[in-house]
């Protein structure tokens, strides 16, 4: 090692100037194969007040469990829908109620460093005024038997695992609900890698 990682600083209250131009709420354009889902929720602070100036970024594999880390770059030239799947979303929370919503496909299972595969999940990064370093968490899906063996989920105290698992909306369809609580009761688990 010869250099030191730069220090993080907050995005501040005017983050929309920097992040709105590349907001991506529809992560899987029509034609991308996979089970189509939507996720919506709200972001809350320590007083359970909605965070109306936050940003949620998402990163996920495609339906087959492949990350498009390099393939995604080809999307600019490629014409097929699969090429247009980058797997990245960026959603600014609503200025009134702190809500966010995105549509995508359910990610497939990716390799686990312990061998085998991880449970389907979406990596979520959170930015906001008052947050000097972004927070990273994961969204898992309810009733997935793979959750029980997931390497990352197993690091989380059992009493807090529920904060990482989305709820299926009452219609029983492909809509999920998942809130992010930055501080306080039902505080979301955030990871340090």
């Amino acid at each position, binding site marked *: *090692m*010869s*250099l*030191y*990682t*730069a*220090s*993080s*600083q*907050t*995005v*501040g*209250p*005017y*983050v929309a*100037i*920097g*992040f709105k*131009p590349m907001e991506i709420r529809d992560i899987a354009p029509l034609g991308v194969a996979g089970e189509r889902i939507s996720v919506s929720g709200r972001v809350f602070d*320590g007083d359970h007040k909605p965070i109306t*100036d936050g940003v949620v970024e998402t*990163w996920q*594999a495609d339906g087959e469990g492949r*990350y*498009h*880390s*390099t393939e*995604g*770059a*080809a999307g600019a*030239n490629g014409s097929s829908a699969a090429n247009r799947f980058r797997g*990245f979303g960026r959603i600014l929370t609503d200025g009134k109620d702190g809500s966010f919503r995105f549509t995508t496909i359910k990610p497939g299972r*990716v*390799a*686990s*460093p*312990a061998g085998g595969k*991880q449970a389907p*999940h979406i*990596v979520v*990064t959170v930015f*906001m*005024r*008052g*947050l*000097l*370093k972004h*927070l*990273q968490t994961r969204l898992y899906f309810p009733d997935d038997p793979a959750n029980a063996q997931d390497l*990352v989920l197993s*690091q989380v105290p059992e009493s807090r695992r529920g904060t990482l698992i989305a709820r299926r909306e009452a219609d029983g369809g492909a809509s999920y609900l998942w809130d992010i609580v*930055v*501080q*306080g009761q039902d*505080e*979301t*688990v955030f*990871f*340090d*890698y």
Partner: protein
Amino acid sequence: MSDFVAYRRPYYQTQPPYLYPGYRSTVKRSPSQPLVLAPQTISETTGPMFGYGIVKEGDADLTAQHAGDPLGERIVVSGRVLDENSRPVAHALVEMWQANASGRYNHAIDDHDAPLDPNFTGYGRALTDAQGHYRFVTVKPGAYPWRNHYNAWRPAHLHFSLFGIGLLQRLVTQMYFPGDPLLPYDPMYNSVPDDMARQRMVSTFDWERTIPDIALAYRFNIVLRGPDETPTDTRRS
């Protein structure tokens, strides 16, 4: 373990804490529970790639986005994006946003009594080249008051957002200007415990890259987390 690359953790005291009461907004927006230490997996060592489909010619010149020229002191801000191993981070997306020369943001919630500039939006983006170089042309932002404490002023700064190769390299930071008398009073700048790390957020005056009769220049190199050199080393610090 297959083709698994571990990223080193940032060096001691180079990153700000979540709770820093001097910056008031952190009090209700910092986790109260310790973060859960988790193994790095392919979900964190990969990350989105952005190509020229997103970044277009001219996106990095914030002085040329409107019919007229923005007011203020024109500057070139350039540098390299490297990882901790001094390797360039190529084709990285760099997004930048800022206040105008009067210290006013082009944003509905900014009510600072300073003029907006119809010729300045304050947003630009660039991709680093194969050697990690990026370059913006813009105007020097003004300092502005904020309500954190009595007579609080933010030093002039640019906001930078970077995507590296993997999500673990994601970084949002701010670039400051050399010799700014407001730095010692700024809670955000001072939230970083290590003195040298704080100073690395301050750009340097860059005589070599000034444009005669047109623009002054500042240099700002940005270092992202880097993979461990020895692939067999699985230590965690």
